[in-house]
């Protein structure tokens, strides 16, 4: 059982958690993720670690409410517990002195890009960060990203904060202005990562993306998170989650991520009908129901 030491909303639907997980905190490196499960009937979902404090034995997660599990998680508060947290999983980000690095964070992807950004800065890179969000309220980690960057640019889709537009507009400007870019790291929604990859491919700029396929065990055992890299299967949990953006087949990723859309919508709808009792069940029932004698349809 993993205790939530602190929980606070950073923006509507985006919550930050500080979780007691000493083993994970001790081993964590930027770019790695955890898998968690909230209750005995829960699914396992992967979440990138935002930060770890090995001395205190804590990790930080930034979670956006999307489906049932993330909504349920974001209903939990300081003092609640999470049934299972396993990690750190995946390969750490490749941190070295590349020169000038452009980090692009789309939406909650900013929180996932942040630890690698800080590490890249620490390694002596010139870091230009471009953070994008739909609107002013959803701009997160501005202070942290500013500290971790030499230059920080912010875009909002609706122009309610900073510059109106998309993160790719800023990248295009940098390229057109002749800025020397040695590496691009893009973390965010798939369409954004794909757009970045298309843009930098033409310019021959090395580009890394962090992928988020459907995952179960996170140790390489199930193969559910396979992604097509240069036409070959690789597993995001053990070979990734970061990959060379120019080798990723994004269409396959989109297609595979849609496999359970109907079921996910159904789960979400049922959750929304009575969120309170579901949260109460998670809080009450960490001993859980030992429902093993289930009968099929």
């Amino acid at each position, binding site marked *: 059982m993993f205790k939530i030491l602190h929980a606070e909303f950073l923006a509507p639907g985006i919550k930050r958690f500080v979780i007691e997980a000493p083993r994970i905190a001790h081993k964590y490196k930027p770019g790695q993720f955890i898998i968690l499960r909230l209750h005995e*009937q829960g699914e396992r979902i992967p979440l990138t670690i935002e930060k770890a404090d090995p001395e205190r034995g804590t990790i930080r997660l930034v979670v956006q409410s999307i489906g049932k599990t993330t909504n349920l998680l974001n209903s939990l508060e300081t003092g609640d517990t999470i049934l299972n947290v*396993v990690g750190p999983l995946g390969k750490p980000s490749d941190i070295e002195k590349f020169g000038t690095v452009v980090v692009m964070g789309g939406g909650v992807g900013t929180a996932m890009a942040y630890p690698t950004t800080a590490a890249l800065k620490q390694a002596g890179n010139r870091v230009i960060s471009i953070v994008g969000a739909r609107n002013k309220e959803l701009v997160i980690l501005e202070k942290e990203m500013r500290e971790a960057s030499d230059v920080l640019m912010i875009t909002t889709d609706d122009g309610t904060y900073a510059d109106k537009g998309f993160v790719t507009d800023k990248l295009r400007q940098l390229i057109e202005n002749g800025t020397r870019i040695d590496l691009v790291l893009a973390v965010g929604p798939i369409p954004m990562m794909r757009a970045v990859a298309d843009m930098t491919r033409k310019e021959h700029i090395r580009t890394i993306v962090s992928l988020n396929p459907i995952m179960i065990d996170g140790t390489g*055992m199930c*193969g559910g998170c396979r992604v097509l890299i240069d036409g070959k299967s690789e*597993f995001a949990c053990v070979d990734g989650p970061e990959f060379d953006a120019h080798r990723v087949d994004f269409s396959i990723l989109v297609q595979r991520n849609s496999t359970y859309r109907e*079921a*996910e919508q159904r*789960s979400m709808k049922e959750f929304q009908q009575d969120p309170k009792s579901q949260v109460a069940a998670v809080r009450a029932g960490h001993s859980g129901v030992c429902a093993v*004698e289930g009968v099929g349809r």
Partner: protein
Amino acid sequence: MTQPTKTKSLNVLPLKERMKVPRQHMLEQSPVTRATNFTEVNLGYSEELARQEAMRCLECAKAECTRDCPVGVKVKEFVQLIVAGDYLGAAAKIREDNVLPAITGRVCPQEDHCEGGCLMGKKVEPLGIGYLERFVADYEQRNMDLKNVPKAIPTGKKIAIVGSGPSGLTAAGDLVQKGHQVHVFEALHEVGGVLVYGIPEFRLPKKIIRQQVDYMRAMGVEFETDVVVGRTVTINELLEEEGYDAVFIGTGAGLPQFMGIPGEHLNGVYSANEFLTRINLMHAYEFPKYDEPMVDFRGKNVAVIGGGNTALDAIRSSKRLGAGNAFILYRRSEAEMPARLEEVKHAKEEGIEFQVLAAPLEFLDDGKGWLKGARCQKMELGEPDASGRRRPVPIEGSEYEIPLAVAVIAIGTTANPIIQTTTPGLATTKRGYIQADDTTQKTSRKGVFAGGDIVTGGATVILAMGAGRRAAKAIHEYLANPEQW
């Protein structure tokens, strides 16, 4: 009738009569009923049936059943105790060599081991050793008190077991009985490894695994879930920082193999590991009560590619999810199938079709990223290959298409590299498995032992248990005198 003495058999039935008694069949759910549920197929022996079956034992002087058992269960002795009605005694006798009797009694390929060696099997059906083991283990479960589980005198030595599958549990059970402090690490959220995520409820109920694990807890074994050794903590850290005197690695085979044919990324194409993990570990068949979803199988055509126990577990699960046509696609003939005989029989009774001597060449896209079928090719058998089985040879011009909504690939696994790549000095084979000695299971690293699928590649529960047992014996000797190793 004379009163049996210690040296004499307790069995009153004359030897020549024993061959005349037919093998007692275990009650099972009817095929029609069970193909719609996930509850256990076999229902167990009554005491009467068990004793009747036990009476068939010929009590051979040279017990080939024990010789052929990877963990060396004293079959003749425990069967005699059943004849005498001492079922708890029989359980204790099995436990001397096998800490998971309720599991092996259900999933062991007995025909390859104890029952394969049974002398009676040369003339009539062999003694139902697996059924008897299962009976005794279940009886023990119903009638024992965990408070009475014997505990050994502590030695003060600490052993880390990596992985809570069959090899890890066996090593843990044997070592805790020697008085060592045993701590088992499991990567998933539930203890049992492949027993939990791989083998379906209808063959091995989760309740049985939990009971066997609870027994081990009562023996003093500690379990810690959610630890991926190699990531959460390394082997070096266990030895150097956490004070373990020895480590046993029993992490299983790991990465699922794909076929490398077009269309493997289509929605509806699964590895057997993913499919079975969704069903068994995550209870996807109980969606939406459980969160984990599964694609809709109802009325659909489902094929599983492969011929082992995993393939049969997957196809029989598909049937239970409501598949219209459920079939095995296997590139050799039925005679070469590595699956347990009882599973093949049960599968056929449940209406599973066997399309043998055929293999897919390509998975076909419905235009929206979902599987709609497979282009297959017929095979014939050629010369035996390295495995001794006749090699499948494609027949030119025999290609054909089949409509499919789901395909599950169950053609084996490759080594999971997480531990090998994070443990300096741990020697591996060309295929990436951990190198370990055949008799002691010791690796190239002092104090580190390994066994099960991570050493041999995909095998069976009982073979992994055999390795766990050999490792436990060696670790016990190593701890007494590490300098000698």
